[in-house]
């Protein structure tokens, strides 16, 4: 096997040193009745067989350019410049571990310091951590952080029902064994969160909305912050489309205390939903309550600038059961990928790409409207929006799938009141011709 370099000669020499006769003997300390005596039932392939097999699985997937997929909902098809995967494949980046030895990890450390900085600038916040698993677990951690900041005295968090349904599922999973309450806020006819129930809530540690929300609508984060702060609760902004903040006013500029969301749009392949990037940022005053790794700038013994992992006393390997979270890793490679992407697009490029997303989605929205579909929520959107289709659109959608067009996702399974409503997405990669083809089909 090409990954196992020991020859029989090597093995014989080493066995002699350790005082064992056979390879089985070296497991002598394992009690007889704990040992598995059979053979593993696993297939094995040569590399070319594996290539054929994997290719045969991959071709069964509905992906561009064969398919036109008008679906976002937390996973977005954005163009990734070739330089990003190329740089990322450098094995000094990919095959290194957590930078516990800073002297030989300055590459990782500086890249993540740059990631923290660019993420904080994107979101308008003081400080971002080295990343969480994904947007969903990031939100759960943000809510727990808000409760911690309230010294566990306030036990309720309010979350918008327009936060991605999967993110809300994850929050529910995290909160189930705790004695904290999660209250869902309903939505208004314009497609934004109804904040009025917040006034009657006691014991509130935080209020969370997603913007753009699951319907694609841009929330009024300032109003959420005002409302939350009025109840001495924290304002938390979640997001599933990081690229929106290339164009939209940042959460930090609208009073958010904690901002968390999915950074997949920043140069990371969709890859069936993972790995993604849990972007996580907060105000400086809350930094010691943050979960996750942080990289800080410092100097070495010669006075040279460099970077280290820092504020580790919050973390599980030091504080154990009293840590701010159990998270041990970060999405290092994805964070690095997003840094490469943000560096590639730059300040000028990110605005232009974000604008194109907005413009394409507006075009598709208005053309579908002209074709007779209803746009039920009139709040401005970024690159996704909801349409109400005529009865029986489900079979039309199936028909379109046969023609390799995926016309959004149905919302009824998440919002039972929204039968015949579909969520559609267009990004900078969506061509006008493909949008026109869809419009022609639904006319």
């Amino acid at each position, binding site marked *: 096997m090409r*990954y196992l370099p020991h020859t029989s000669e090597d093995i014989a020499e080493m066995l002699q040193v350790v005082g064992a006769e056979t390879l089985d003997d070296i497991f002598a300390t394992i009690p007889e009745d704990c040992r598995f005596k059979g053979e593993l039932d696993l297939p094995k392939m040569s590399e070319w067989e594996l290539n054929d097999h994997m290719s045969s699985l991959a071709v069964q997937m509905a992906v561009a350019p064969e398919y036109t997929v008008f679906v976002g909902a937390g996973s977005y098809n954005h*163009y990734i410049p070739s330089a990003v995967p190329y740089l990322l494949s450098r094995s000094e980046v990919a095959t290194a571990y957590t930078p516990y030895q800073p*002297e030989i990890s300055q590459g990782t450390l500086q890249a993540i310091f740059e990631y923290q*900085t660019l993420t904080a600038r994107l979101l308008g916040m003081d400080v971002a951590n080295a990343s969480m698993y994904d947007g969903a677990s990031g939100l759960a951690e943000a809510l727990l952080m808000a409760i911690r900041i309230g010294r566990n005295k306030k036990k309720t968090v309010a979350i918008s029902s327009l936060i991605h349904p999967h993110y809300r599922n994850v929050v529910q*999973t995290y909160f189930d*064994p705790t004695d904290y309450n999660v209250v869902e806020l309903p939505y208004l006819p314009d497609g934004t969160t109804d904040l009025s129930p917040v006034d009657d809530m006691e014991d509130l540690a935080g209020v969370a909305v997603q913007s753009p929300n699951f319907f694609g609508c841009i929330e009024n984060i300032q109003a959420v912050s005002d409302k939350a702060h009025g109840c001495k609760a924290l304002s938390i902004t979640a997001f599933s489309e990081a690229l929106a903040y290339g164009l939209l006013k940042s959460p930090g500029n609208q009073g958010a205390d904690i901002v968390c969301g999915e950074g997949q749009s920043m140069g990371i392949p969709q890859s069936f939903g993972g790995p993604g990037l849990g972007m996580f940022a907060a105000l400086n005053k809350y930094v010691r309550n943050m979960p996750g790794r942080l990289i800080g700038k410092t100097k070495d013994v010669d006075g040279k600038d460099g970077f280290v992992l820092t504020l580790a006393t919050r973390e599980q390997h030091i504080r154990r059961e009293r840590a701010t979270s*159990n998270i041990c890793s970060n999405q290092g490679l994805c964070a690095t990928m997003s840094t490469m992407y943000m560096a590639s697009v730059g*300040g000028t490029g990110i605005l232009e790409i974000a604008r194109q997303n907005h413009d394409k989605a507006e075009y598709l929205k208005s053309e579908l409207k002209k074709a007779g579909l209803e746009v039920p929520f009139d709040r401005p959107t970024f690159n996704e929006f909801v349409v109400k289709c005529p009865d029986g659109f489900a079979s039309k959608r199936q028909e379109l799938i046969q023609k390799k067009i995926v016309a959004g996702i149905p919302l009824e399974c998440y919002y039972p009141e929204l039968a015949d409503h579909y969520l559609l997405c267009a990004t900078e990669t969506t061509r006008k011709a493909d949008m026109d083809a869809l419009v022609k089909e639904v006319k």
Partner: protein
Amino acid sequence: MSHFAGTTGLIMNEPLLWEKGKKGRCGISIPTPDVAAAPLDDEFTRDEIDFPDLSEVDVVRHFTRLSQWNFGVDTGMYPLGSCTMKYNPKTNERQAALPGFAGAHPMLPPDLSQGTLRLMYELEQFLSELTGMYATTLQPAAGAHGELTAMLLFYACHKSKGEKRSKILIPDTAHGTNPASASLCGYKSILVESNEDGILSVERVAELMDEDTVGIMVTNPNTLGLFEDNIKKVAEIVHAKGGLVYGDGANMNAVMGVVKMGQIGIDAMHLNLHKTFSTPHGGGGPGAGPVCVVKELEPFLPVPRVIKDGDRYDLKYDNPDSIGRVHAFHGNFGILIRAYSYILSMGKELKTASQHAVLSANYIKEKLKDVLHLPFDRPCMHECVFTDKKQEPYKVSTLDMAKRLIDYGYHPPTIYFPLVVSGAIMIEPTETEPKENIDQFIETFRAIVKEAEENPDLLHNAPVTPKVRRMDEVTAARKPILCG
């Protein structure tokens, strides 16, 4: 010494990203708009974002230079205990980059996702086979996330029986993630001291286990690199009180095909695909931490579950007892591809991998135990733990020896862990390190021990060859600069 890998080289300076570039540059090709601009009201839009504008050349040179300041598995021997820094096969990268996988949307109907669903279904089968468990979930995004998932499963299982337990037993050798994961579930951690052999004692577990205790979290082999001999009896005691046994699979690389955890009393365990199954560590992630469980816990696994119906794969959502989702989609699928590719490349030889990993660790232990203090002198599993006790008279610490290894071209072992051993040096060579390199590492370590006696300042001042030397971590934490 005959020859060693470490040397000095040409290292380029490189500023921070925002200290480079010029307004108006762009490193990405932006398409010409094919639809009309649709202005968005100013009330919604932001001021210009403060990102540097860089050309593609600026970006490529920046990250190339940064990469050269890093040490990776492909650079040299990386004997970082408990982390299983084995070689990351390049074929895995090819498979993960296939456009059908890389471009797959996670919310399309199963009919449009048969390839990924089949891969997940089969990977679950492989992992269940390796662990002797009944079922596996692939959703957890990392080892610690897997631990949390398992604690949630235990909570749900007890709840289904009308029980709510408040404590959990955790050995003193455990990773910090174990107590932290248990806390997230509201469980109080009860410390179980290991015995004089460095393993769990049946008596201590029996004293502590009661009907308010959820069960026990055991890392096996444990973080001292020792197999928990009493595991079956421990499991019996825990089960007798209605408890459940969690297996932290961080050290699975020692026992593939040798021990099936499902057959020795473990009820749930996580696997670190980035350790045992060769996926790259990525400078700290992403990993993947699938959880394998016995039949009793299967109804509680996160949804959706991948199922097979004839030749067709589907997603099943309606499991009423499920704890719900732990990930927005299907877990770190890109990592799952690599682990699947690795398992198919290795097949039954996964057992050979474990055998060689254990052989190499024992070989190092035998070759260094005369110069380094070995707190538990018995056969180890895939890693061995020494201390700096013999170097104390020379005022040389574990940290000093670790830093000196850098000068010689090695990544240091894990140090000061496990916490129960003062000044621990935990060495895990893995099965992919050739014997010549292991011999050279041993020779180097022996030379360093000699330096410690003869010229300890060489160690106190180490490392001297990398881009930077020892960092001021105290100021970094006291006056944090976290943003540029």
